[in-house]
């Protein structure tokens, strides 16, 4: 049932994919497996519920429209059974109220079909990350860049960086997901709370502004553009 990749994954996530369309399921399982995740797939809601309760998964990817079984019901049942792993809804229902009802039912993220695989992959990485034990942390640090979560200020090489409030939120989001790819839509959702896709390059513009403040004149580049996927803030190797 499991597809275990040969090479040691950098951050392997144990994923259960609940998708009734065989081709889509295969695409998801194979794709995620190639990324180094441990992936299982089931096609029916009842099987999904049994499997998810029996085994300990780090993440569930749930199609909202499984025949005869609403993905929302599955998640409610899981939460009632005291299973609190993150759930990513995958759905063709893209309306405002559909997303809201999905999140209200206990979903953690919502991706509307059709989607780019890079988008799914980035979200899986973000959701599958184990929560850090130190929830009380007051600062984040990547290489020589540091932000203070309380005073909401940033410093690099101990030099303060002037940031607008939204730029700070953007930087904080990138720092919290350091080493991971974050996509344009993830940034739009979490930094600006925009759940639609502006057709202009809003994110590009803001990231390049932030980059000019954070990277310019400080030596090694920290904020990287990942072509065709998004952005990644990481320490130089």
């Amino acid at each position, binding site marked *: 049932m499991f597809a275990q990749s040969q090479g040691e994954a950098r951050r392997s996530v144990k994923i259960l994919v609940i998708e009734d369309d065989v081709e889509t399921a295969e695409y998801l399982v194979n794709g995620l497996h190639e990324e180094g995740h441990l992936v299982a797939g089931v096609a029916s809601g009842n099987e999904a519920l049994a499997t998810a309760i029996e085994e300990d998964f780090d993440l569930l990817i749930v199609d909202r429209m499984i025949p005869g079984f609403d993905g929302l019901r599955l998640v409610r049942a899981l939460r009632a059974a005291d299973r609190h792993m993150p759930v990513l809804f995958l759905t063709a229902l893209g309306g*405002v109220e559909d997303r809201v009802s999905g999140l209200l039912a206990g979903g953690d993220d919502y991706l509307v079909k059709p989607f780019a695989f890079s988008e799914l992959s980035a979200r899986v990485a973000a959701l599958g990350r184990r929560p850090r034990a130190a929830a009380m942390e007051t600062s984040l640090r990547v290489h020589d860049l540091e932000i203070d979560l309380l005073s909401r200020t940033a410093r690099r090489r101990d030099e303060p960086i002037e940031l607008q409030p939204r730029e700070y939120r953007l930087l904080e989001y990138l720092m919290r997901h350091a080493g991971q790819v974050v996509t344009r839509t993830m940034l739009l959702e979490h930094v600006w709370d925009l759940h*639609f896709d502006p057709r202009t390059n809003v994110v590009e513009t*803001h990231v390049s502004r932030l980059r000019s403040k954070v990277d310019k004149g400080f030596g090694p580049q920290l904020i990287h553009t990942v072509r065709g996927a998004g952005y990644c803030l990481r320490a130089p190797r």
Partner: protein
Amino acid sequence: MLPARLLRTSSFRLTLAYAGLFGASVLILFGVIYWATDMYITRSLDAAIDSDFVELGNTVNAGGRALLARQIHERLRQMPRGAMHYLLEDQDGNVIAGDLPRFAKSTGRYDLNVHEADSRSRHQRGIRARGAALSGGDYLMVGIDAHPRDEMHELILRAFGWGSGITLVLAFGGGALLSSSLLRRVETISRAAREIMSGDFAQRIPVREADDEFDHLVTSLNAMLDRIQSSMESVRQVSDDIAHDLRTPLTRLRQRLEQGQRARSPEEWHSAAAGCIAEMDAILETFGALLRIAQIESGAAVRHFGEVDLSDVLRTMAEVYEPMADEKGQSFTAQISCGLTVWGDRELVGQMLANIIENAMKHSPPGARIGLETTVCPTEINVAVTDSGPGIPADEHRNVFSRFYRLESSRSTPGSGLGLSLVEAIARLHRVRIDLADNDPGLHLNLRFAPVGAAEIAGCTLADRAQGT
């Protein structure tokens, strides 16, 4: 109108049920009257008998059986057709005096029927009587004519007969009248419904202006029909639009796939695949926008409406687009009042504003001025998005909101021609008025929001309409 149909109508059945109920209460009422009257008369008859009994009892005490017999004879002789009747028998059952027929000796009160003494009529008459044994074994019975009681009974029964007859006639007549008038009105509605079903969707049920429950029903039905018709039209519009505007990019996609098939090197194949994905994304974007417009036009989102901090949404927009304008070499100025609240969906309002601002920026050249400004008056909140670009000719103002419509001058700029259609759909859902004016140069687009109190009412009625109630 067929009588059989009339009998089947619910109003007629209801009337009948009422008539039955009413008849039953009349029956009970008459029964009580009958019983009470009967009791009263019987009691007075008994009182008369009792007083006579006492008198005759005294006679027995004074003079024995002989005096009693004499007394009875005397009384009957004096009043041969009187109300009182007597019977005195000895212990062997021989009649000593009196005009009542022989009788099985029984004591107490009872009713009996005797044949008329005179033979001209075989008529029976009712007698109320009391019998008692006297000392020495004699038996005395005193009776009184129960004629008044019988008359009263007859009177009451006749009144009851008439009363219930009239009640029934009124109930049937009234029920028929009421039912036929209701049936006529229902018939009008169902005839209109049949015509609509047979394809005449523009048809509406006539309203009688009587402002009664039928008119309310008809008004609701008509509103429902309006709503269904507009939904159907929007669905048809979407399918027309898809057929019309997706065909071109789909054809291009097909061409690119064929190119990929003929690719001779991995590089060629790669570039064909990348081209296909880009084409597909554009198609999906158009498709998504169409679906989104249709979804918004369906009005379902109204159920999730709440208070939206418009000032906050506007500030976010300014924050997002100010650097963008900067990048394009345009200037962006925002003047946003604090504490503006409107009724709606935050995300949709945001998308509407984003589309308008993007539109202004996209169609304006570098160096243009983009403005976002709010003005507040007690009845409305105005949000103006201005630019100093080429503007839109006044005779095109109406057209720019239709789907896939693009000005001749902007054919070369990328875009699906759906941005402002989405704006219009969201604005309509939120009861926001859009006015276009010349900014000289450029476009001045004004959104008129109702402040939260007023819009809340509008939102609710829209929600009611959306649910078809």
